[in-house]
């Protein structure tokens, strides 16, 4: 049993040094690994490491930097730009000045041409970037002088600066290749705190600290991202000491609570689950039914039972503690009030216990993607709550190929959550111009007041005006809930207690988007980690 013995030896050695209270550097008890290396277990790996195809578009990419970056509280900070951009009065021109002395990991200096190349390639029709529409506002990018980049927008787009966390790639390397299949996808060159040492697809990625990083060489020199899709295997490998940290579902994370040298981090998120209520269907399109369902769902019980406590009730796409959340739009669980609404609207109990109105039964079908246990349980809980007020919800599962053509007609247990600016998530979710456009606005929600608020918030850069617009939007959405928002999920990470960030006692997490695990988690700012003394 080499592994078991190795671990016993390590533990004994650690125990001895702990009692001896000396031996600098031997202060960890997990496999006696040095604190300048870390092995992290995540469930999925990126399809590509090229930002031209979408890698690291929300920042924290380790290998690259954007013009701007986000801190622990998601505030924008300069990265490759020397400062936040200068914006023209009409909000159409953004000027960035590049930081001096930044080089790519191959030694070549960063130039405005690299920035222009990156944005132009992402915007190129022939580049297979699935997130291209996020930059739809950009009309033109040009270099000015030796250190400036100027973006011209097609229309005023207040949150544009938040999109410039997009990683910048070197034109002298990536420009020589086909962006869709070139070698840059697997052997990238960036300005970031780490460089790629090895990538065995499906198994692991190995990063090494970039000694010439403009922000200073990271203290953690070796980073391994092990790709372990199975939750149980990941937990076992964490327990055996093969991994130093991992993302885990709540029930497995709970099994590590008593481990003295492991810390559990709970990251709150924008990642919500909601039931889309198609406007085209006479039942789900009925505002009274929508409001009744909104009051009938027991969000607290869902958080407790379905999510094992790892989540919070959601009353809209924005989490309750978000800066932009409209206070007062929380709704209590009140099935009696829900029944009253339906009663007043003329719904009457039929022979089978289901409400009817004008000969139409209050019944609809709810789809969830097959294999997603959380969505399945949420869908069943939703159907149970709806039944209590006399609404019949038939729960069905299917692959996305089955669900996609039905999104306009049937309800779907959807999940989204964007980070950066409320506009990024809300506009495609609610604006009537996005109705049925791919996966945008699936239920064809159409509310002129909401449309206006979304447009206003895009146009003005005045913080108070934007806040007023988003407050209006959230109140309108509570009046006519085109989705029944259920919960925001928390993401759980268990990590060895060997590091801290400068000036704090431990590590931090950001509020995370729907897609997470690789760039999110307590390792979002790996480059700032310090070994614990």
């Amino acid at each position, binding site marked *: *049993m*080499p*592994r*078991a013995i190795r671990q016993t030896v390590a533990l004994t050695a650690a125990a001895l040094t702990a009692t001896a209270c000396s031996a600098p550097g031997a202060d960890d008890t997990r496999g006696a*690994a040095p604190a300048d*290396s870390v*092995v992290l*277990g995540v469930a999925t790996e990126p*399809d*590509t490491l*090229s930002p031209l*195809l*979408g890698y690291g578009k929300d920042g924290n990419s380790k290998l690259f930097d954007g013009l701007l970056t986000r801190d622990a509280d998601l505030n924008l900070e300069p990265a490759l730009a020397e400062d936040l951009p200068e914006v023209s009065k009409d909000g159409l021109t953004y000027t960035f000045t590049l930081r001096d002395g930044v080089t790519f990991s191959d030694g070549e200096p960063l130039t405005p041409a690299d920035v222009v190349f990156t944005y132009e390639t992402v915007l190129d*029709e*022939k580049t*297979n970037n*699935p*997130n*291209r*529409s996020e930059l739809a506002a950009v009309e033109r990018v040009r270099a000015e002088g030796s250190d400036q980049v100027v973006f011209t927008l097609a229309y005023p787009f207040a949150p544009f600066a938040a999109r410039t966390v997009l990683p910048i790639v070197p034109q002298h390397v990536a420009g020589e290749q*086909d962006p*869709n*299949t070139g*070698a840059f*996808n*697997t052997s990238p060159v960036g300005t970031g705190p780490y460089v790629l*040492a*090895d990538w*065995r*697809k*499906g*198994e*692991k990625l*190995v990063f090494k600290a970039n000694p010439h990083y403009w922000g200073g060489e990271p203290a953690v020199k*070796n980073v*391994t991202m*092990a*790709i*372990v*899709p199975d939750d149980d*295997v990941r937990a*076992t*490998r964490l327990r*055996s000491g*093969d*991994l130093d940290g991992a993302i885990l579902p709540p029930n497995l994370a709970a099994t590590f609570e008593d481990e003295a040298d492991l810390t559990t981090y709970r990251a709150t998120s924008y990642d919500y689950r909601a039931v889309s209520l198609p406007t085209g269907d006479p039942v789900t399109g009925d505002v009274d039914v929508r409001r009744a369902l909104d009051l009938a769902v027991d969000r607290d019980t869902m958080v407790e039972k379905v999510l094992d406590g790892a989540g919070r009730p959601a009353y809209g796409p924005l989490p309750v503690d978000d800066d932009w959340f409209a206070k007062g739009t929380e709704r209590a669980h009140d099935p009696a009030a829900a029944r009253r609404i339906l009663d007043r609207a003329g719904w009457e109990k039929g022979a089978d216990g289901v409400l009817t109105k004008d000969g139409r039964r209050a019944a609809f079908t709810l789809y969830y993607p097959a294999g997603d246990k959380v969505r399945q349980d949420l869908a069943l809980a939703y159907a149970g709550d709806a039944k209590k007020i006399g609404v019949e919800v038939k729960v069905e599962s299917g*692959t*996305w*190929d089955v669900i996609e053509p039905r999104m306009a007609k049937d309800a779907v247990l959807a999940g*989204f959550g964007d980070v950066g600016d409320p506009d990024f998530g809300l506009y*495609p979710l609610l604006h009537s111009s*996005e109705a*049925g*456009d*791919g*996966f*945008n606005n699936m239920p064809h929600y159409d509310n002129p007041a909401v449309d206006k608020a979304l447009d206003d918030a895009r146009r003005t850069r005045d913080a108070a005006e934007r806040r007023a617009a988003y407050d209006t939007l959230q109140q309108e959405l509570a009046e006519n809930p085109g989705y029944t928002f259920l919960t925001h999920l928390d993401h759980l990470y268990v990590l060895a207690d060997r590091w801290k960030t400068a000036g704090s006692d431990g590590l931090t997490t950001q509020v995370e988007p*729907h*897609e997470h695990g690789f760039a999110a988690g307590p390792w979002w700012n790996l480059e700032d980690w310090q070994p614990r003394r």
Partner: protein
Amino acid sequence: MSAAASTAAVDAGAATARRRLPWGGMARLTVRRILTGVPLLLTVTLGVFALAAASPFDPVRGYAGDAALTADQETLDRLAANLGVGEPFAVRWWDWLTAALRGDLGDSTVLRQPVLEVIAERAVWSALLCAVAFAVAVAVGTLLGVLAARRPGGLLDRTVTGTAYTLSAAPVFWLALLAVWFFALRLDVLPAGGLTDSGSSYVSFGDVAEHLVLPAGVLAVSQLPWFVLYVRQGVVDALAEDPVRGARARGLAERTVLVRHALRSGLLPVLTLIGSRVPELITGALLVETVFSWPGIADATVRAATAVDFQLLAALTAFATVAVLLGNLLADLLYGLFDPRVDFRDM
């Protein structure tokens, strides 16, 4: 070839004259096989294109992953157009074929790298896994088969045969999961997956060897029953044949009779089996690689299939077909060499 031939010569015990190898017959058989292999390859690859075109998987979603679930219609359409979705499969097959004949296997869309690169960096690990498993299965299978055949109906024979029948009915992925559960989770003596320890940044021999034990062991065990049963039957039959009776009559030691006479003749059907087991070995390896996250061809195959990645799928299928054809050819050549009664012209 010469090693096999010399073993055959020694095994024959005929020290009088070295039998000349039938080079002409072997060459003619090889050429015939290549000629029949070409239309077969064409058919198989065309079939793969047809199947992929009929598959319910959405290539755009396979390509973009979760990003496709938040994308607008313009993005989905643009990706579909760039990926060539909607072109008739026969056209795509012809384009692929003409490019492949010029040596260009194209680019894998789902893995975002050239197909040749995908195969080059993965094939070696799959080959290692298959070779080790196959060698173990043949060696252990032969040994157990001979031991069981020594006393048909004995305790050892009944145990070995019974286990072999049970194992032959066990799905390989189930065996793999069972092995992970027992050796990695319960006993914690062997790693549950991967090529090396997660923390190690380079590939070392010892590390790979330790990680190879479980996947190769499971694959070997899944192939083992066929070899055990065939060897056992072959040797049991041979023990009843005239040469064996003659050898015994001449007073040769039982060991000599068993190894030199009965086994040699009993192994003939096994040679055929080697060829016919290659496809099973490849499919078994795909499942084993998936369970043990072995960085071989399997992961690429699954992703190519679910993402309807024509270029990668076609290349992988063509290579698998070639492997099977080569396996069969090799088995036939060996068979002809080992059994003087067989004429290459009849194959």
